[in-house]
């Protein structure tokens, strides 16, 4: 039997018209940049009981938790699909701007985890649980997505469309601009941003399928590594302003924008009306290396949820669900 190379794995995906109605044809075909993919996720435990021979109990399947998780490089053609999946709602305008905003009820998706020619598992009624993006100087911009499904079917027919993965430019760190408090200081050397929907699966009594899933607390957290140019961030964090001399009980917050732009028509912008800093560290480098401070932040609750975090993707596709190829 032929040996299968390890770099052929792909994930296909499409939004569903309704829960319980798997998509018949995928719109997107994702590559992976590291280990990952789908797992039907049978939950296997041992149920202890007495036994005169002192042998370990046999294993028992007590449920399943279908999940998909993979990472790849951010592309403008694919990110609107991912942004809508994690935020829940999307609007399309012009040629072509896709604005993903958070809502309580997330869409359902169908995903196919494929080793071409060998293995194809379909995951139905999936919801995005988390989406993270990260980057640092001299590197690409990566995303990691985590998705939970309600059921998995083994050995389904492998999708034939889209025939190819997206081939538009992979985003990289020279395309990044971070703007805080209305100013882009140019000192952000690395970032991460994670949107977590805290999806809970409601299992019910449907065998190895689950009844439904529901999004929980919407939490957006991030980190940044900044070139240290003074004590302003430290004093803002502990004292509330760059000139503060006394500690404050207030949590310092400011506007936040993270733009990754290959061009004016191929970009992704994350915008929050307010991020709160939860940690700041000014490390010691005994080897004499320059200081790079570490910041941690989370977005701040907003009267209008969309102002917590909006993701705007500009690309050449009519909708967030339009196939890139």
């Amino acid at each position, binding site marked *: 039997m032929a040996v299968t190379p390890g770099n052929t794995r792909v994930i296909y995906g499409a939004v569903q018209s309704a829960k319980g109605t798997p998509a018949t044809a995928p719109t997107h075909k994702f590559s992976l940049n590291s280990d990952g993919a789908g797992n039907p996720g049978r939950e296997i435990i041992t149920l202890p009981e007495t036994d005169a021979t002192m042998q370990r109990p046999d294993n028992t399947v007590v449920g399943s938790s279908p999940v998909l998780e993979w990472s790849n490089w951010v592309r403008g053609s694919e990110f609107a699909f991912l942004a809508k999946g994690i935020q829940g709602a999307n609007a399309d305008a012009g040629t072509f701007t896709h*604005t993903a905003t958070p809502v309580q009820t997330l869409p359902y998706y169908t995903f196919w985890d494929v080793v071409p020619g060998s293995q194809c598992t379909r995951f139905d009624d999936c919801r995005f649980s988390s989406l993270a993006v990260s980057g640092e100087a001299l590197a690409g911009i990566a995303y990691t997505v985590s998705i939970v499904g309600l059921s998995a079917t083994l050995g389904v027919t492998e999708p034939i469309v889209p025939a190819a993965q997206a081939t538009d430019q992979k985003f990289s760190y020279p395309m990044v601009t971070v703007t805080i408090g209305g100013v882009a200081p140019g000192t952000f050397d690395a970032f991460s941003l994670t949107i977590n929907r805290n999806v809970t699966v409601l299992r019910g009594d449907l065998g190895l399928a689950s009844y439904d899933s529901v999004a929980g607390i919407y939490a957006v957290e991030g980190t940044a590594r900044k070139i240290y140019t003074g004590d302003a961030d430290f004093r803002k964090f502990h004292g509330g302003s760059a000139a503060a001399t006394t500690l404050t009980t207030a949590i310092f917050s400011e506007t936040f924008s993270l733009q990754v732009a290959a061009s004016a028509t191929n970009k992704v912008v994350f915008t929050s009306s307010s991020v709160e800093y939860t940690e700041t560290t000014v490390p010691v480098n005994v080897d004499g290396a320059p200081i790079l401070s570490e910041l941690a932040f989370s977005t701040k609750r907003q009267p209008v949820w969309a102002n917590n975090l909006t993701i705007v993707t500009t690309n050449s596709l009519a909708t967030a669900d339009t196939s890139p190829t």
Partner: protein
Amino acid sequence: MATKGKFKVELKSGVDGAQFQADDKHIELTSDNPTFETDDPALYAGLSQLPFLKGSAAPTSEKAGG
């Protein structure tokens, strides 16, 4: 078939299309089908907050889409 309801949202001017989930269904609004109606006040409250939709709580007529 169009969904009828006491609460209506529609695309704001300048928005070409929108997608969101309403209960178990994926809703797609377009310029040809720019409105969605529901009887669910919680769903309406969420949708009417979206920056690309405008809502009205007045009962609507059979011209609604969904």
